[in-house]
C-alpha cells in the first residue's frame, strides 16, 4: 500500500458512482494513472472509492464520456481541514483571545490599598503612585518592583517615614508610617527627672517640678535633676516633673580611614536585555548582542506571569547591565584626616537623639599606619539628659 499519509496531506475524496459503466470507468481511471483504493460495492451498480484530490481533473475529463453518475461523498485531508479551520477560525481566535485577556487581566493592578495614612497623605501618595504608573488597570510588567516603589515613595512623600509595599496577587498593599502621628496624650504619673548620663548642665527648661540642680553643675547618671515633690513641708504636692535639661556630655570616637579607597563607580552606560523564560527555555525578546563592558554590575528583575491565581512557569526577565569602573581614590594625609573626622561625626550622630548638637571636637590621638589614618576624637555634645523616674507612692512616707 502506498503511503496514506502523503495522500492525506494532499487531500482525499470519496467518490460514489452509480450506473452500469462503473467498473469500466474504474478501468479507464486506473489506466489513466489515477490511483484508486478502497473500492467498495453497495448493492448493485453502486461503487464507492477513494482517490486523490489532485486527480480530480482527470476524473472530470473521463466522466463526460462514462455512462455512470458521480457524487462526492467524503472529503478528507489537510486541504479540507484547512478550509474547515478557516471557517471555524472564529472559535479558535476566540479561545486564544480569551486566554490572552485572562492572562492580561491576571497581570493587571486591580487595587491599591493604603493603610495607616490619613486621607491627605493617602491622596498625596496616590498622586505620586500615579506619576510612576501605579494605577488601577496598569500592567504589572511595566511597573517598578515593590522595592522601587517603596524607595520612590519614601523619597518623594515627605509626610511618611516608612512605607511597606507588598504585591499580593493583583493588589498593592501599602503600609504607611507617618511622621506626624497624632501624639498620644501621655498620662503622666508622678515622676522625677534624673540624669541618664554624666555631664555639665548648660540649660534647664522646666515645665513642672522643682529644680534640684543648677546650671554648670556636674551631674552623674541617676542624679536627681527635677523633683516631682513640690511645696514646703506643710503643703506637699506630688506632680509629674516635666522639662528639658540640656547638658554638655562627652563622647569618644575611634575611626580609621584608608588613604586609598577603591569603589565601584557607574559610568552611566547600561544595556538592558528582556528575556521571556518558558521553564528552562530562554527566548530573548529585546536587547541582543554581547555585553562589551569590562566591569559591570548585573541587576535582575523577574516577573512571573500569572494566570488567575496560579503562577505560570513563564517569567519576564529584565536584566540591566550597568557598566562600572573601579575607581581608586587616593587621599593625602590632610584629606584623609578630614574624611575620618566626617566619618566620626556621622558615627556619633547615629548614637544621639535628633535634637543633640555637636559643640566641639578635639583630636586626642592621630596616627598613620599601614596606609590608614587612625583617629581618636573627643566630642562635646549638647543634649537632653533628663530621664523620667516614676515616684512610687510608698516612697512618700
Amino acid at each position: 500500500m502506498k503511503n496514506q499519509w502523503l495522500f492525506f496531506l494532499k487531500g482525499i475524496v470519496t467518490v460514489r458512482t452509480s450506473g452500469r459503466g462503473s467498473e469500466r470507468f474504474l478501468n479507464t481511471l486506473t489506466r489513466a494513472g489515477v490511483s484508486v483504493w478502497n473500492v467498495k460495492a453497495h448493492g448493485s451498480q453502486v461503487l464507492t472509492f477513494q482517490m486523490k484530490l489532485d486527480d480530480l481533473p482527470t476524473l472530470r475529463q473521463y466522466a463526460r464520456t462514462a455512462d455512470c453518475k458521480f457524487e462526492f461523498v467524503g472529503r478528507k485531508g489537510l486541504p479540507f481541514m484547512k478550509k474547515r479551520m478557516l471557517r471555524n477560525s472564529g472559535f479558535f481566535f476566540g479561545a486564544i483571545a480569551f486566554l490572552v485577556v485572562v492572562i492580561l487581566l491576571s497581570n493587571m493592578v486591580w487595587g491599591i490599598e493604603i493603610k495607616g495614612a490619613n486621607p491627605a497623605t493617602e491622596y498625596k501618595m496616590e498622586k505620586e503612585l500615579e506619576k510612576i504608573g501605579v494605577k488601577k488597570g496598569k500592567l504589572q510588567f511595566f511597573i517598578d518592583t515593590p522595592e522601587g516603589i517603596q524607595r520612590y515613595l519614601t523619597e518623594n512623600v515627605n509626610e511618611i517615614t516608612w512605607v511597606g509595599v507588598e504585591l499580593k496577587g493583583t493588589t498593592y498593599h501599602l503600609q504607611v508610617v507617618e511622621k506626624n502621628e497624632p501624639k498620644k496624650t501621655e498620662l503622666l504619673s508622678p515622676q522625677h527627672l534624673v540624669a541618664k548620663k554624666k555631664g555639665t548642665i548648660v540649660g534647664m527648661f522646666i515645665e513642672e517640678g522643682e529644680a534640684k540642680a543648677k546650671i554648670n553643675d556636674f551631674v552623674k547618671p541617676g542624679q536627681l535633676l527635677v523633683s516631682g515633690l513640690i511645696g514646703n513641708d506643710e503643703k506637699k504636692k506630688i506632680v509629674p516633673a516635666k522639662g528639658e535639661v540640656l547638658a554638655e556630655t562627652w563622647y569618644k570616637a575611634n575611626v580609621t580611614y584608608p588613604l586609598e579607597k577603591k569603589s565601584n563607580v557607574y559610568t552611566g552606560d547600561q544595556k538592558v536585555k528582556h528575556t521571556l523564560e518558558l521553564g528552562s527555555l530562554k527566548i530573548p525578546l529585546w536587547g541582543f548582542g554581547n555585553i562589551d563592558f569590562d566591569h559591570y554590575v548585573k541587576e535582575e528583575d523577574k516577573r512571573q506571569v500569572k494566570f488567575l491565581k496560579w503562577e505560570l512557569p513563564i517569567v519576564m526577565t529584565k536584566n540591566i547591565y550597568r557598566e562600572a569602573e573601579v575607581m581608586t581614590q587616593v587621599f593625602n594625609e590632610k584629606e584623609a584626616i578630614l574624611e575620618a573626622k566626617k566619618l566620626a561625626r556621622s558615627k556619633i550622630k547615629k548614637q544621639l537623639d535628633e535634637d543633640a548638637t555637636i559643640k566641639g571636637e578635639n583630636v586626642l590621638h592621630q596616627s598613620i599606619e599601614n596606609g590608614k589614618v587612625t583617629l581618636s576624637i573627643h566630642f562635646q555634645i549638647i543634649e537632653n539628659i533628663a530621664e523620667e523616674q516614676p515616684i512610687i507612692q510608698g516612697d512618700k512616707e
Partner: protein
Amino acid sequence: MAKKWGERLRSWMTKNMELPQDVMMDLPRITMIGQIHIYIENHRGLLGFSDKEVRLLLEHGQLLIKGNNFVIKTIMPEEILLQGTIEHVLFVAE
C-alpha cells in the same frame, strides 16, 4: 497461425530457459494470503464488482473470485489487491 507459433516459442523458451512464466506468457500471477487477501498481477481490467463477486479480464479468459465483503484495496492498470473472505477462485474460459 503466426500467433500460435509465437506462443509455442514462448512456451518452449520458458521451459528450456527457466524464465518465469507469467512474464513470458502474459499469465496472471495470483498471490493469496489465507482467505483474506488476493493479489492479482497482470490482469486486463475489471469487468464486474460487487461485495460477493469480482470478475477480472485476463489475457485469455476471465478470473472469477467469489466470497464475501469484498473491498478493492488498490487497483492499478495491471494489478489489483482484493480484501475480503475469499471462497472460490475460478478461471473461466472464453
